[in-house]
């Protein structure tokens, strides 16, 4: 079995490591700053995917592989995105049901406190 790896340009691994460290530090700053939820989620998810892409491209050498292999590696990302969107219709109904149930619990908790005040 011929298993010798052909030579390709060796990426600057230390530079990739520094980028990953900087992105992780930015993530921590955002997490501790506790910004509005929408900004928190969108920024952290973007940073996480940027880090994942860096690891896949340079540490896993996907950037230097044939395009067909890169497409194979990309399949799980497509399927998981599809899976998440498939869940969305169910999620939206569950979210409303959960909020309704939460409000009912809060109302039932508030009712006994309000009872003595009523004539």
């Amino acid at each position, binding site marked *: 079995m011929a298993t*010798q*790896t052909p030579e390709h340009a060796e990426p600057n691994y230390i530079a990739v490591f520094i980028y990953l*460290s900087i992105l992780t530090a930015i993530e921590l700053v955002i997490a501790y700053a506790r910004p509005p939820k929408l900004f928190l989620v969108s920024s952290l998810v973007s940073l996480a995917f940027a880090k994942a892409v860096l690891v896949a491209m340079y540490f896993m050498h996907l950037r230097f592989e044939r395009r067909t*292999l890169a497409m*194979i*590696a990309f399949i799980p*990302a497509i399927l998981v995105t599809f899976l*998440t969107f498939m869940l969305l219709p169910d999620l939206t109904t569950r979210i409303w049901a959960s*909020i309704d149930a939460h409000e009912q619990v809060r109302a039932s908790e508030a009712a006994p406190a309000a009872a003595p005040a009523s004539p």
Partner: protein
Amino acid sequence: MSQAVADVHAEHLHTLEPAESPLTPESWGKLGMWVFLCADAMTFGAAIAAYAALRITNVNWPEPRDILGIQTTAVMTFILIVSSVTMVQALSGVKHGNQRKFTMFMAFTILGGLTFLVMQAFEWHHLIWIEGLSIRTSLFSATFFILTGFHGCHVLGGIIYNSVILLRGLAGKITQANSSLVEIAGLYWHFVDLVWILIFTFVYLI
């Protein structure tokens, strides 16, 4: 005459060598590892999607940072990233015929994985014995233990895999000639790092 026939036969065998894959330039092993990683990625993807679905639909979901220690986990993340760097350095060593660099950085990679597992064990110990969490306590704790536990099993598998590669390297069975074995092991290890990057964000930070 017989030598000429033998040469032609050897050349014919060479052309039939299946190591030249249309997908990867050098080995079927790498293609096999990528296919395995795709399947594994879908398992993790489904688990993370289920975590997101359960979390979004529960208004009483606790803030993870109030329960989980972000500082410890940030150090664990840093250790895994460093271990990925040592892994590529080990690969660089064996590719260039530097066995000493290869074995030294492989040992560092294994040490990084072990440190990660020990820190995770301490984290679990704190959550279970101090905080009183278990897999049955709540959806939050169940998803947390399943996701981090599944990943921890992968780290353990990676440590064993890398240890085998290191031992074979020390025995002189892995050299520049078959360096792609190290690259294939590296693919698995970097995947473990990649998944942790996502788990760290989704489970601990958000």
